[in-house]
């Protein structure tokens, strides 16, 4: 499983766009990139997954450059309730792979 590197923490203000970048230099050809969100006292929750270019859903966008060695989770117009830990994971989504978590990025949104 490819190792991921993310910033330990980030601060933002309400209404701003937040971009969290994840580095995964050893990503394999069949690996997908998945992001999870975890609030205190809750289990992680799936946010978004992608393989290349750009993926967007109702919660976030995921940007993946052509070399796939990094990815950026973009949260538009964050609110206080987006304060959470965000995890970037890399692996093969087709094989029932083990979900291995890195350190994650602790996002703190201020009023």
């Amino acid at each position, binding site marked *: 499983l490819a190792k991921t590197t993310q910033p330990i923490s980030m601060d933002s203000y309400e209404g701003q766009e937040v971009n969290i970048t994840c580095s995964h230099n050893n990503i394999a050809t069949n690996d997908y990139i*998945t992001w999870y969100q975890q609030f205190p*006292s*809750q*289990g*992680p*929750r*799936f946010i978004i*997954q992608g393989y290349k270019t750009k993926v967007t859903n109702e919660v976030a966008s995921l940007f993946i450059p052509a070399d796939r060695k990094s990815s950026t989770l973009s949260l538009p117009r964050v609110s206080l309730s987006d304060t959470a*830990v965000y*995890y970037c994971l890399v692996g093969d*989504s*087709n*094989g*029932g792979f*083990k*979900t*291995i*978590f*890195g*350190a*994650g990025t602790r996002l703190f949104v201020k009023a």
Partner: protein
Amino acid sequence: SAVISQKPSRDICQRGTSLTIQCQVDSQVTMMFWYRQQPGQSLTLIATANQGSEATYESGFVIDKFPISRPNLTFSTLTVSNMSPEDSSIYLCSGRVLNTEAFFGQGTRLTVV
């Protein structure tokens, strides 16, 4: 996605005793996993619960300490045996269906005194 229920949600236990945590999914899943999360830390995978056979443990975790059962495709248990204060943590159950993302229970907060 499917919903996972964990029981108990929290417990305070005496050292030397054992606690069994139950994980129930509301639909069949291909794979089930157990994690541990220390306060302020990331999740650490304990083992993969295999249906009808012995669990597959990650490095640093052994069956004698964390016996796991998975009798069917919707249920699993994790036992924390002979507990010490170092076992105080949040234990999370996770399920996954092939080609989809993993989903998690709310966790069991264990305090060993």
